[in-house]
């Protein structure tokens, strides 16, 4: 298996209309699994978060996690969907060793949410509307590891090992309607869409949304048809494309691959395909003749889910602002330069800056703390800046003390260090470390006189108009006062002496 012949991208777009469809699986961050009380935790020892239910022991029965239903409804609402007044679970029957019961408990004809839409903004500001067909609840499968063979891949493996820790983790599968009209920008749109879903579920705190852990996974459907043709072309479904870059590249690859086949009179096989991240191509999955017949039927062990209007509205009230709209609002409110704002967004510090501003700091000052000193400290401690043990309110308090002249910049950095070291609130740190701007001019004047005595020519120079000469004395005074004075005040006093 290797790369197939491709048509140059521009030529493919010229000759064909691209239609994409995206299925995104979002793992919810509930405490327990979808149908049992096992912990929903990533990275534990294999088969330690399992029970009779999630390893499908005979006799066991599922019970629906209420929080997972709430999160699913919330996701539906965030995507502008309608919430089904009555929905139910169904069994999707197929044999696979990572599927403990050899059926997946999912939703089929009655998904919890349907008919939504979201606007996706590309980097240059162009907006595409993506229609959502449905969002439904289901459970994740276990994890297979293929042992032996050259690569640890499924091909050529001698045997496989199954860990069911992930089996039964709640998933919401979000399915778009076919997306038309993106043209050359289809790959970019696909990635932007996945990014937007990720951002939304993260802002709602219903998923950890870490793609590298598989919290958000994408299946990308691609089909081509000659411009003007009404009938949709045959599509392929590229499974488990698990980074934004891969989504873009996989869609682009499929466009070029299918275009080459169609242009040479070939036909596209309807199949699932696998994306090879390392080498950047898709390959045909195993043709699964019988996998097409999943024999769905209503799950008899579970009763219907009928969310009341009151419950839905209660959930709607907890929804955070749409991340895109929020960004737009904050950028306007803060008046940052585009680059400054992007820096905050890319460092994932919107929440921190917003909270710091809300606690009273000026937007620019708040930004500088988080993207500057605090980011630097986090970096040196090898932790995420969000995980530093300082709150936006504490940052705002420190800034306020600077603004009122009670702290110098250098002292403020000391206070931050104290807060991070667990010495308490800024006030407590100031107290403990004896960090007070000296406001008693008597002591200050004595220090200035002492410094001036050591540099007698300075006053003369100032009187001659060389005001910058004061700098040498300011430095000496600051040193003598151990930094606990306001440099501007020192300068003021020196200039006064020179009069």
């Amino acid at each position, binding site marked *: 298996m290797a790369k197939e012949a491709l048509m140059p991208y521009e030529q493919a777009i010229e000759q064909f209309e691209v239609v994409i469809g995206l299925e995104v699986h979002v793992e919810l961050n509930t405490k327990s699994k979808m149908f049992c009380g096992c912990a929903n935790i990533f990275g534990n020892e294999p088969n330690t978060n399992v029970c009779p239910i999630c390893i499908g022991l*005979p006799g066991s029965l599922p019970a629906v996690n209420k929080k997972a239903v709430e999160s699913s409804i919330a996701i539906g609402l965030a995507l502008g969907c309608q919430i089904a007044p009555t929905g139910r679970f169904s069994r999707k*029957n197929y044999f696979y060793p990572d599927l403990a019961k050899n*059926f997946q408990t999912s939703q089929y004809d009655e998904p919890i949410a349907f008919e939504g839409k979201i606007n996706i903004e590309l980097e240059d500001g162009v907006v595409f509307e993506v229609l959502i067909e449905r969002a439904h609840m289901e459970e994740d499968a276990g994890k297979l590891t293929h042992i032996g063979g050259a690569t640890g891949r499924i091909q050529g493996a001698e045997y496989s090992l199954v860990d069911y820790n992930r089996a039964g983790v709640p998933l919401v599968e979000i399915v778009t309607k076919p997306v038309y009209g993106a043209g050359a920008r289809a790959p970019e749109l696909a990635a932007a869409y996945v990014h937007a879903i990720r951002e939304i579920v993260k802002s709602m705190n219903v998923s950890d949304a870490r793609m590298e852990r598989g919290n958000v996974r994408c299946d990308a459907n691609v089909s081509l048809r000659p411009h003007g043709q009404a009938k949709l072309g045959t599509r392929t479904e590229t499974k488990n494309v698990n980074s934004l870059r891969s989504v873009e590249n996989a869609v682009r690859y499929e466009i070029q691959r299918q275009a080459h086949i169609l242009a040479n009179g070939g036909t596209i096989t309807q199949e699932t395909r696998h994306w090879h991240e390392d080498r950047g191509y898709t390959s045909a999955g195993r043709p699964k003749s019988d996998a097409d017949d999943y024999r769905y039927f209503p799950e008899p062990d*579970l009763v219907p889910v009928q969310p009341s209007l009151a419950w839905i509205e209660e959930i709607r009230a907890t929804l955070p602002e749409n991340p895109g709209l929020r960004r737009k609002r904050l950028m306007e409110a803060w008046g940052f330069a585009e680059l400054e704002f992007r820096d905050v967004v890319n460092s994932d510090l919107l929440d921190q800056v917003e909270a710091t501003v809300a606690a009273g700091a000026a937007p620019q000052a708040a930004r500088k703390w988080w993207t500057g000193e605090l980011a630097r400290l986090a970096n040196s401690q090898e932790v995420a800046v969000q995980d530093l043990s300082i709150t936006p309110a504490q940052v705002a308090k420190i800034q306020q003390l600077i603004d009122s002249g009670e702290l110098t910049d250098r002292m403020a950095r000391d206070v931050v260090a104290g807060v991070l070291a667990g010495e308490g609130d800024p006030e407590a740190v100031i107290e403990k470390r004896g960090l007070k701007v000296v406001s008693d001019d008597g002591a200050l004047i004595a220090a200035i006189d002492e410094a001036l005595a050591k540099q007698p020519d300075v006053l003369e120079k100032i009187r001659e108009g060389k005001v910058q000469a004061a700098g040498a004395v300011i430095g000496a005074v600051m040193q003598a006062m151990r930094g606990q004075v306001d440099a501007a005040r020192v300068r003021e006093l020196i200039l006064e002496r020179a009069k």
Partner: protein
Amino acid sequence: MSDLIHKSASELADLIASKSVSSQEVTSAFFDRSVELNPKTNSYLYLNRDTAIAAAKAADAALANGEKLSPLHGVPIAVKDNLTTTDAPTTSGSKILEGWVPQYDATVVARLRKAGLPILGKTNMDEFAMGSSTEYSAYGPSKNPWDLTRIPGGSGGGSSSAVSGHLAPIAIGSDTGGSIRFPAAVTGSVGAKPTYGAVSRYGLIALASSLDQIGPVSNTVLDSALLQDVISGHDKHDSTSLPQSLGSMADAVRSADVKGLRVGVVKQLDSDAFQPGVKACFDDTIAKLVAAGAEVVTVDCPSFEYAIAAYYLILPAEASSNLAKFDSVRFGLRVTPDGNPTIERVMAATREAGFGPEVKRRIILGTYALSSGYYDAYYGSAQKVRTLIQQDLAKAFSQVDVLLTPTAPTTAFKIGEKVNNPLAMYLNDIATIPANLAGIPGMSVPNGLAFEDGLPSGVQILAPAMQDAQMYRVGSIIEQMYLAEWGAPLIAQAPKLEVL
């Protein structure tokens, strides 16, 4: 104390509670008899003296401390082998589960333990409860204590033969289409299928999830009532379990009164399809009720004609999915074919070797009923028939308190008589299936011996959903009428198993 084994569970419970006899003595008596006679009846697949006696000792100790854990405290019990038990293998009558010791107890098993009932052992059954005779057990058929050449009914023939042969005073069964009631009828014992959801299914190896229900098997109506009271009640592990209590069945039995009783006879289940001797027993029951002052009317349930067809679509469909988990990965048998087979081939070879012919037949039938192109016509229509049956029953129950039918079309047939004719086997359930499709309670109470063969017959009592108490009340009325005639329960007329 050998007469202990002929006592009812409630009598034994009273003796134990008054410390006239210990649970350990009672448990030993049944255990010793089981060890001796099980080779004749094949009622049990597994007997464990150590765990049974340990539980009996614990029950005695509790009682010595003044703790009576339930009205059946100390009474030993047999449990059908499709309920998971952490201290005994659980096979569901199948080779594919041979030797599996579950990692958890079924809710019903946990409740029995908590109520102080020592578990004697696990009883035989048709493989995965698919059958009406136990002939589809992978471990050989159980025998009817009335005639060892005949079947004890199925799928719960192990439990019915154990109780009617006095190898256990009471037992647990499960009923998907009649698997408690049919065995009760053909062994002269009592068996009840509660309202769907009254007893938790958690830990019951599923046959058809929307039809399965666990229930009691006993020699008296009161014993079944007492047992249902012990095992029923809401369970958060079973999402279909009823949130509310249905009240005390034992109280209903003790306060039974025929006054004002209205009884319905279903037109569609009063036909020549029944063996004349069975029909005669049924007519006798109705005559007795009329004589006692009950009002009897004929009710029309036209959709019952479709019940068997609907049942044999819904059951295999759900079963085909429920039995998919038997794949050789996490538990149970694994058969690895020669060469270097893939997991797919290992699974297929395991299921080929581990499942018996009836199980394979039903899995394939169910797969067919659910497959695309057939779903609407078969599974879809069958689910609609359930609605029609519920509508018919609602109408009938607007006129009467309970419906009565013969439980089974025939008395116990000979082992081997129907085993190669699945369709004939399916017809045994003609009167019992509607209750499962509709979720209503049904029980079988002995009502005499058929004149042709001298074998037991049973009358089935059906009540509206949630009105299990009404069913027990009428069961008790009928039992009392016959006790007045026979002087002792029907089971007393059974031949002595020891000399058979």
